[in-house]
């Protein structure tokens, strides 16, 4: 089996699962309990927080554990809107965001907020000039993803951060779910106020995640209850999940030190190999692209068909993003990039992890070629 759908989710590291099981079975106390079992659990939680903060080069008090990317994005966006609705009712985002940002924005629109969706160029990138001209007096939040989940385009987060130094009152949220471990992001220097990450995208477990909230920045909570996570995220803490995520993050960042070079090599091998296949068009740009995603279309073959054909060979890839692929509509990102609808309907996404080897890439390429040949015979 060759698993090339790591942007959908990754396989948890064994060490991560071990930690999860140990914490769940031995330290199951509630961190809020006053007795020693509670103290142990709280210690584990604060150590997890410390480790995550250290790896992200921020303070422990700036890390809030969540249930994943969707929650982090919702909390940052709606929490800001709720708290600052009297200051302004305008938010800016891009037109290629993950549904957890997009839909949160749409929900706010129904509540009377105004949203500007910035267009992207044919590489999937927004322009900082567009962003600046979209800024209004009543703009309260800008939310831009770091790496696009469908094609892998890297957005100009640093430039936006620089620009926003001129606009100190506007808050800046970055959805870094796809970029963590692959593209460095300086939260402190980059003037980022909120940043969401998700554990299962880097070999942690589903249902774990964290939101970075810059010191001194406030949010309205979305969950009411026992005031855990410094009142911002009520609900008994997922201690085992947080510990597992802290470990997964440490392991991933260590692997990235040497793994990124190999990942880039595999990506360019795949890119070159795919280009040689007749009728393949690659959508992932050459520049400003993450090292782990390649999105391409095999002209005339519906993506679903191609994916099932690859599946028979034991190769696992995605149509577009896993989250929206159930809707069976072509990739929003590709359409926004100006890719024609028929071509977008054939789009396939390969996404790598540091666990993928060069041999796997070679085998996968052969698989792509074979499938392409077979399908073309049948479909044409």
């Amino acid at each position: 089996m060759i698993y090339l759908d790591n942007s959908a989710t990754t396989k948890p590291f064994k060490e991560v699962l071990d930690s999860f099981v140990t914490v769940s079975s031995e330290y199951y106390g509630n961190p809020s309990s006053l007795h020693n079992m509670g103290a142990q659990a709280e210690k584990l939680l604060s150590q997890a927080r410390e480790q995550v903060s250290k790896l992200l080069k921020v303070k422990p008090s700036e890390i809030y554990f969540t249930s994943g990317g969707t929650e982090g994005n919702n909390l940052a966006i709606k929490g800001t809107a709720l708290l600052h609705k009297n200051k302004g009712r305008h938010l800016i985002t891009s037109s290629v965001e993950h549904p957890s940002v997009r839909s949160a924005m749409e929900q706010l629109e129904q509540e009377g907020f105004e949203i500007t969706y910035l267009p992207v160029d044919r590489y999937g990138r927004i322009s900082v000039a567009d962003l600046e001209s979209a800024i209004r007096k009543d703009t309260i939040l800008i939310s831009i993803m770091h790496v696009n989940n469908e094609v892998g385009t890297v957005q100009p987060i640093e430039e936006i951060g620089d620009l926003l130094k001129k606009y100190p009152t506007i808050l800046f949220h970055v959805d870094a779910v796809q970029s963590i471990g692959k593209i460095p992001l300086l939260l402190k220097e980059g003037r980022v106020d909120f940043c969401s990450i998700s554990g299962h995208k880097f070999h942690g477990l589903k249902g774990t995640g964290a939101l970075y909230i810059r010191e001194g920045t406030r949010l309205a909570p979305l969950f009411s209850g026992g005031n855990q996570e410094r009142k911002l995220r009520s609900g008994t803490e997922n201690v085992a999940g947080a510990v597992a995520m802290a470990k997964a993050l440490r392991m991933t960042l260590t692997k990235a030190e040497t793994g990124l070079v190999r990942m880039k090599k595999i990506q360019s091998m795949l890119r070159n190999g795919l280009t040689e296949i007749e009728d393949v068009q690659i959508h992932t740009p050459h520049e400003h692209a993450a090292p782990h995603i390649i999105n391409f279309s095999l002209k005339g073959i519906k993506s679903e068909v191609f994916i099932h054909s690859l599946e028979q060979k034991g190769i696992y890839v995605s149509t577009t993003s896993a989250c929206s692929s159930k809707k069976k509509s072509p990739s929003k990102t590709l359409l926004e990039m100006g890719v024609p609808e028929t071509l977008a309907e054939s789009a396939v996404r390969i996404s790598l992890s540091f666990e993928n080897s060069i041999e796997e890439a070679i085998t996968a390429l052969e698989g792509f070629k074979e499938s392409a040949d077979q399908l073309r015979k049948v479909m044409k």
Partner: protein
Amino acid sequence: MEYERILIRYGEISTKGRNRNKFVDKLKKSVRIALAPFPNVKVEAGRDRMYVLLNGEACEEVIDKLENIFGIQSFSPAIKVERGLEELKQSSLELVRSLYRDGQTFKITPKRSDKSFELDTDGINHTIGGYLLQNIPGLKVNVKNPDINLRIEVRKEAIYLSCQTIQGAGGLPVGSSGKAMLMLSGGIDSPVAAYMAMKRGVEVEAVHFFSPPFTSERAKEKVIDLSKKLAEIYGSLKLHIVPFTNIQQTIREQIPENYSMTSTRRMMLRITDEIRKKHEGLAIITGESLGQVASQTLESMFAINEVTNTPILRPLITMDKTDIIKIAQEIDTLEISNRPFEDCCTIFVPSSPKTKPKREKVQHFESFFDFEPLIHEAVQGTETIVVKPDQKQHSEFSELF
């Protein structure tokens, strides 16, 4: 241009006459502790200067550490140049060039502690200044408010060049003023008091009163975490944990409720003083701030302080709570102090404690019972732990992370 060393200027140490060596040694120890994460760094201490030789370690990171060390007035990253006019010219030019941006001004501050050098300070000024002006087009002189101040120090062994003077934390090296015992409750004030005393060179050992089951393990945890923060300043901190349950219960039985707080403080002070004697301290530090709570009125202090004539240092005595909180935030202890566990001060608080207790009355109430054996027992039962700043104390869990 890569800096090769950092030159450290002493603060008040320079005025300390015959004790100077002791001060320099203490400062050297502080610097060594703070720079422990940089194994290649070497520290050379001289009578009026200290040098940190970087040996390839990152200058910026070393600077971050030095900024927090007490006893340093200022410091400058510097380049060492062989004695000789040509070498001096070349290195000066390289250094200024690396910093110069269009239209900037400069001046030279020469200093010549070794008079045998061929040029005097005026000569250095003219020669080097002229050389820089010739070789960097656009560079101008401004002696009042220059963008670049090139300091040239001619010493016997070499010449040192630096362009940047970074303000140090000031104060005196920790340990240079002797040892004192800190009464550490777990609240916001006592860690701040410790920090301020340390800034004036006091070596601090902490005393904490632990009354299980009235105060929990988690309160103790909290105090250990605070100690870890304070330990960052000097590498480690001794924490004495006093079993206090017996005394608290006895006070409840023996002393009228509205005087129980006054009496409790007196007992704490007596015990702390005994521990101070045992560990050869010279003073006791508290986080008291005048009028903040019932035990911190002048009347209370008058009634409580009677039990000892050891100096009691109260660094926060005239400070407002908001200012104390600000410092707690800066030294990163506020968050820990805010954890909501009962401690020795919050438990057994009478509903209306005396804000103006009378000495004679508390003496009278205490006279019916001999507390001495209990105090002795508490001192005997005191557990002393040495707290280190690093995370490794979590080691029971380390394999989980």
